[in-house]
């Protein structure tokens, strides 16, 4: 019997996913600091839903439950989705989104390794289309809110939908910088004056730039740990910087700077955590470059011309469709073969 090699030096799928979760921790910490503890509730709800849905589906599909729950892939999906939706949204929103992501986008396609689309992005897209209003109710950064909510208030809001006495919803939420920019541009204001608004910080949204910065940090950790290769994040960020740079150079009054785009919305999360999902992404080095650049360009175009403030989810889903094509056409030259 020939069953070599007898030795292995591979981290398990579980340990890879665990490191991804670990890399998200700085971002989550910054999130809590800027927006309050509500996100922890959302994360918990998402985690429980994901694990329960995964277990139930594995049982229905007669697959071993323990090894697949312990691979943490469901938790990664849950966390990414939780970080992508407003943390003060009603509790059932994240439950519905996570449930859809795990059951439909992942398990119905065959579970780990078989989902053609990024499950978290499918969950996000479903929520955005189904509950557009709830999905835009983002909390203002605590330092900007007229009446900052305590953790208890946020918890109460999430589960009962009731704000503390005398507090209006507008007092605790605010438009995201991308959203604000979009609406103000439609009102014929110029970028220079728009960005004077309090929601804007040095790089992106005030406060939010810390969160995105922490994502960047976590991403660098993943790269250092060789969990992700440089191709996807670099190509994404470079392409986003390039396309926004071109538009910005042509008309700085109408288009925001590359730096703003890099540090706004889900850019950093996307660059290091979303498009780096190996299952739904391309495998060839060149393919990764094309894929990431494609996501960046589409996301930018949606931001600027589309109907949504951010376009990461749709861009990722669209590029997921292209993965087989990209892989097929970016096969590297095999040793001893002409190209």
């Amino acid at each position: 019997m020939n069953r070599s090699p007898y030795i292995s030096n591979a981290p398990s799928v579980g340990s890879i996913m665990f490191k991804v979760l670990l890399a998200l921790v700085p971002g989550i910490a910054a999130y809590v600091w800027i927006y309050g503890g509500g996100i922890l509730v959302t994360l918990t709800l998402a985690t429980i839903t994901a694990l329960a849905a995964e277990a139930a589906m594995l049982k229905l599909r007669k697959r071993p439950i323990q090894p697949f729950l312990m691979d943490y892939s469901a938790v990664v999906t849950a966390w990414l989705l939780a970080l992508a939706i407003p943390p003060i949204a009603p509790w059932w929103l994240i439950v519905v989104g996570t449930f859809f992501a795990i059951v439909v986008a992942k398990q119905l396609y065959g579970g780990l390794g078989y989902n053609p689309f990024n499950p978290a992005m499918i969950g996000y897209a479903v929520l955005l289309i189904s509950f557009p209003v709830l999905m835009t109710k983002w909390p203002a950064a605590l330092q900007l809110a007229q009446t900052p909510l305590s953790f208890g208030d946020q918890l109460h809001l999430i589960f009962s939908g009731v704000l503390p006495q005398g507090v209006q919803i507008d007092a605790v939420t605010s438009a995201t910088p991308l959203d604000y920019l979009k609406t103000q541009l439609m009102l014929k204001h110029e970028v220079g004056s728009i960005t004077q608004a309090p929601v804007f910080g040095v790089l992106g949204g005030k406060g939010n730039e810390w969160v995105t910065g922490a994502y960047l940090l976590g991403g660098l950790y993943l790269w250092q740990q060789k969990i992700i290769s440089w191709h996807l994040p670099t190509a994404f960020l470079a392409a986003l910087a390039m396309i926004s740079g071109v538009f910005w150079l042509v008309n700085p009054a109408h288009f925001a700077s590359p730096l703003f785009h890099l540090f706004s919305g889900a850019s950093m999360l996307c660059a290091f955590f979303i498009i780096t999902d190996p299952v739904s992404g391309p495998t060839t080095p060149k393919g990764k470059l094309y894929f990431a650049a494609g996501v960046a360009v589409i996301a930018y175009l949606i931001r600027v011309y589309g109907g949504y403030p951010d376009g990461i989810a749709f861009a990722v889903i669209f590029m997921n469709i292209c993965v087989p094509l990209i892989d097929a056409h970016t096969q590297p030259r095999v040793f001893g073969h002409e190209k």
Partner: protein
Amino acid sequence: MNAIVNIVSLFKSAKDIFPFHGGVHPPENKAQSTQLPIGQLPIPEKIVLPLRQHVGNIPKIKVSVGDYVLKGQLIAEAEGTVSAAIHGSTSGTVSAISDAIIPHPSGLPDRCITIAPDGLDKWIEKTPQDWRNAERKSLVASLRLSGIVGLGGATFPTHIKLRADGKSGVHTLVINAAECEPYITCDDMLMRERADEIVKGVAIAQYLLGAEKVMIGVEDNKPEAADALKTAINKLNAQIQVKIVPTLYPSGDARRLVHLVLGTEIPYDKRSTEVGLQVFNVATVVALYRYFELGEPSISRIVSMTGNVQKPQNFEVLFGTPMLHLVQAAGGAKANTTHFIMGGPMMGFDLPTAEVPITKAANCIIAASPTLFEQPPPAMPCIRCARCADACPVNLQPQELYWFAKSDNFEKANDYKLFDCIECGACSYVCPSDIPLVQYYRYAKSEIIALDKAKEAADLARERNDFRLARIEREKQERAQKHAERAQAGKAEAAKTETGTKAEPKIDQSDEKLNTNNGLTSGADDAKKAAIAAAIERAKALKAAAQTEATTEQKVKPEKSAPADDAAKKALIAAAIERAKAQKAAALATGNIPKNVADAAEPVKKEIAEIEARRQSVGLAEPKEAELITPNNTDAAADKQALIAAAIARAKAQKAAADAAKLAQSDIKTEKE
């Protein structure tokens, strides 16, 4: 981007080493077996020499049981071009020539020559050769008798690597001393202890190839070996370049090593000689030295005995030595040893039993234990992380190949260069999902080879069958004509009571005609019937023969063509038997029955008619031998017989149809893929 690549390649060429893509660095585990010098073993109680120790044809046995053989005596000679000779590894008596388990992944027994040593270890008369003043051509021819094969593990007969006419376009000889697999240290120890022999052997190889340049590639984890080589080169004033390559598995793969030391990428469809290069393992050149300078054929090699044994060590082992003898010499296996692995942990295989002999391919024996080699966890789904692609030294996309192999999409697997896979195991080594990737590739490769073979065989069988059918048709017509003539002659003699004598010279319609025949059989009709029956039997027999041939050939493993020939022979014999039977039946029919029927009384004829009618009613198209011979059966018996015969015929027809359908389907599948 290009600028960066240029700078990097400049840097590389400055370092004089050209790295290949991928590679892995597993724990080396080499120190254990390099603590002690190369050990010698006492002569074992028996020597078992498998004939299959190399790539190619098995050699022809030149001794018989009871013969006394000397050490170094040729006991089996190379047969055909790709084959290698085998020599007695010590003096003694041939005690058996029989099948025994050989060290092969299949675990199947194969032909072996067993020698009972007499303990004298008496050499044949050694005939060293003055190779410097000899013609290359004669040296290469003499090499055919040396039994030398590639000792790196590939065991390709060495004389094939040197052109028989002594000419070659090889300008650079690369000596493979990388020894990249963990645990294995036989080449390392050989270099440390016998560097002089290596340098002398290199000179011979260089002369035989006419190579201008020689390089030895050594991994940087063997500094002692490299130093020993350099010292020997200086001492013997040889022009050999020692290239230190980084320790990275699989740098010992010939194509990878050539790239490392020369930067040359040997095209996938070319041999190294076609680009002026030749690669020899370091142990092989020592064998060359021993053969030409000392007159000793290939009878032993250095083997690393390591892993879960008390005292891991390298030994010089006579081919055919029982492996357990070697284990014993290393202090015995530790208590929790489960089995033995031949080769390294990356590309080796489980030995089917401990009762196997050491062969030319045995560079390393590892005693395995659950602590040494953990049972891999159950495989998880592929998450397309492409770590395998990063590790692949051939720059393949293992994750895609896995997908295609798993779904039996062999055409795609081929498109993605499956056959360029060297099965080094680097992909499996880094797979987070613990997928036994190499197994999938081995499976897909063997399936593709088998399908190709089957298709070839089916095409051949079809062609043969078409030819046969044409011949049968011709023979049938000739025979029918003869029968008709004879019948006519016989009828002329007979009384003129019968009517409707339609002499049909040609009988090419068979069953239909028979069925529409009325019960009143004439002599001519019977003859006709008999002839037809015989023809049908023949056709059936041939069809059966063709089918057995096709199906057996399909099952046969690619490398073993002998069983296929056997099957074909058997089928032919069966066909011949069938033919003989049919002829006998025909003879009986033509010889006896017409007369009987002709002379029979009216009631008997009536009965025959009834039988015929019944036969038609049960749908029996073909007349059976038995019925032809005894047409005057009683009703009940005939009825039953007819029914049984009909059932058998139907079953046969169904089976034949099913077989044909299966064959056709497999053909369609092959074509589709």
